[in-house]
């Protein structure tokens, strides 16, 4: 069976203007650079990586908030890359939704909870007020804001961060989408309420049969949430596979460094110093070699002369590194 969403060589370049000796030179940030992956029906596919590696851009491309520079996005076998208007786009907008990172900014401060959640219903043609009220109440109960009538007519500033994110989740889910991009939905929230939101998303997958692209920079969150995982570095996917497989048996030096950098709960344990050197460099006009080369502890001569390594899959575990043998 074909996957729910398939992404093929997706690329997004952002032009940045810079001045070099009074000459205006056009540079490009390679925010997403030839990314391919597939999300199966009912699956939670994780996207992890450091800040600025292109996770949000990938998510926005998938929900068509951004137009890709090149590449293809296929939803349920239909190429939606060039979809611009008309009933096909309308149908797409109902099937694919997004949950944003910041629940303090993703709700219109002048909208009540009801206004926010009923908006997609109105846009998708639910004109009966009674029906909108009933469906908003139903979804509010589903996202754990009960009893619904005490929340319906509150404004965002009257809600806690966790409650706001539940409202944002309800807005995404009220049209019963098939695929939801969740962009770090818990990273802005208090640690104590993160688990509640994650469990809610897991529960909604069961109840509504929705699939997620789950974006996070937190490996522990990824492990809890995701069935499969893709690790991104400067616009490229460097490793992909089932979550446990990737975390237990990381093949790419970057993934290995990420896992080594995760804080360990045991205070007597002294962590080995992080292997990688330096900081993430922005992917402005990157050189053709491996993106990770400047920071890679294992780089060989081959890496300095060859182009960026392709993602090679063995069973369902893929890695983009010349030296990472599948053991």
């Amino acid at each position, binding site marked *: 069976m074909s996957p729910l969403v398939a992404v093929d060589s997706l690329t997004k370049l952002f032009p940045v203007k810079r001045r070099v000796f009074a000459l205006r030179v056009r540079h490009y940030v390679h925010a997403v650079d030839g990314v391919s992956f597939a999300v199966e029906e009912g699956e939670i596919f994780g996207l992890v990586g450091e800040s600025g590696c292109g996770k949000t851009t990938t998510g926005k491309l998938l929900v068509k908030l951004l137009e890709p520079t090149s590449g293809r996005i296929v939803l349920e076998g239909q190429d939606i890359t060039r979809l611009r208007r008309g009933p096909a*786009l309308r149908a797409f*907008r*109902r099937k694919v939704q*997004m949950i944003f990172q910041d629940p303090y900014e993703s709700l219109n*401060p002048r909208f009540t909870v009801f206004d926010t959640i009923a908006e997609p219903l109105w846009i998708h043609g639910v004109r009966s007020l009674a029906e909108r009220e009933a469906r908003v109440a139903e979804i509010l109960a589903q996202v754990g804001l009960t009893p619904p009538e005490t929340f319906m007519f509150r404004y965002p500033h009257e809600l806690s961060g966790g409650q706001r994110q539940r409202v944002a989740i309800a807005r995404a889910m009220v049209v019963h989408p098939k695929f939801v991009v969740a962009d770090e939905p818990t990273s802005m929230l208090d640690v104590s309420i993160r688990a509640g939101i994650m469990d809610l998303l897991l529960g909604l997958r069961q109840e509504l049969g929705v699939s997620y692209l789950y974006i996070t920079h937190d490996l522990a969150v990824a492990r809890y949430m995701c069935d499969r995982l893709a690790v991104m570095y400067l616009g490229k996917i460097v490793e992909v596979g089932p979550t446990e497989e990737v975390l237990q048996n990381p093949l790419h030096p970057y993934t290995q460094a990420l896992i080594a950098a995760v804080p360990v709960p045991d205070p007597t344990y002294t962590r080995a110093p992080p292997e990688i050197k330096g900081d993430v460099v922005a992917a402005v006009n990157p050189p053709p070699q491996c993106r990770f080369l400047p920071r890679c502890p294992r780089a060989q001569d081959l890496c300095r002369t060859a182009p960026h390594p392709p993602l090679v899959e063995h069973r369902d575990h893929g890695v983009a590194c010349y030296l990472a043998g599948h053991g």
Partner: protein
Amino acid sequence: MAVESRVRLEPLWRVRARLFLRSFRRNWALFWESRIGPLGLGIILLFVLMMVAHPILMATVWDPRVYDPIVGFDPDLVGKHPAPPSPAHPLGTDPIGRDVLSQLMWSTRSEFALGVTAALITVTIGTLIGAVCAYFGGIVDAIFMRIADLVMLFPFIALLMVLRSVIHLDLVRLALVMGVFSGFGGITLTLKAQALTVKVKPYIEAAKVAGGSAFHIIRRHIIPNILPLSFLYMMFSVTGAVFTEAVLSYFGLLDIRMSWGIMIHTAESAGYLGAFGQYWWLWAPPGVAITLLCFAFYLVGRGLETLVNPRLRKR
């Protein structure tokens, strides 16, 4: 469905009315705390009182033949016009024997009509253009911004002088011309800047993901979020309109029969402005009225600023 019946306890319009009332009360409290806002509102109410009192006075104690603001004449004081204040004429009479207080009160109505109409048109146009420019950017934005530059550089009074030679410039037309002209002017820049800060909010992206059209997003998200600022600018626009009318009337450029500006113009053209202090009742009442009304709307605007811009709040 059980959920449905519980939620339908209160009809939606009642909930909305209640929420509106609540936010109105909260905003009113903030406005009240600004001090200058209520002061301005008080002054405006005083003018409203004057406006309402005029027809009542004309119908009861004031004889229309004597007190009519345009065609009235006091025969008891023939040869003494302009007469200084007296019990019969609290603010005296003008050079052609009309009661100054009556003129002052009667003109209030047209000042309000002119100011509010012009400001309403200005702000409506400015809000729409600001929102559309911010949302679409590109060529649409470029066109309206060039128009705004042009309007801001254009000598408006000179334009009206030319216009006057072509059309009959009465109060309604003046309000229209003024409203439209300044609607395309600097106000679009300010409102566009505000709309741009709204445009980048994630809830706009959420509305796009939900399938909202450009029209939907501008109408439901962008305009409501810049409307408070529009309202604020409306107050300042009223000030501008009233002031412009006064200047134009003073130079005799308008086809208006009576206004505060005309009152000063009458005094001036009859040569009574020269001896400054002597015939003060001819120019001081309309002068004070113009200043005070403009000031009042300005104060209300400043009072509203604390609502629109939360950073100005004390707490």
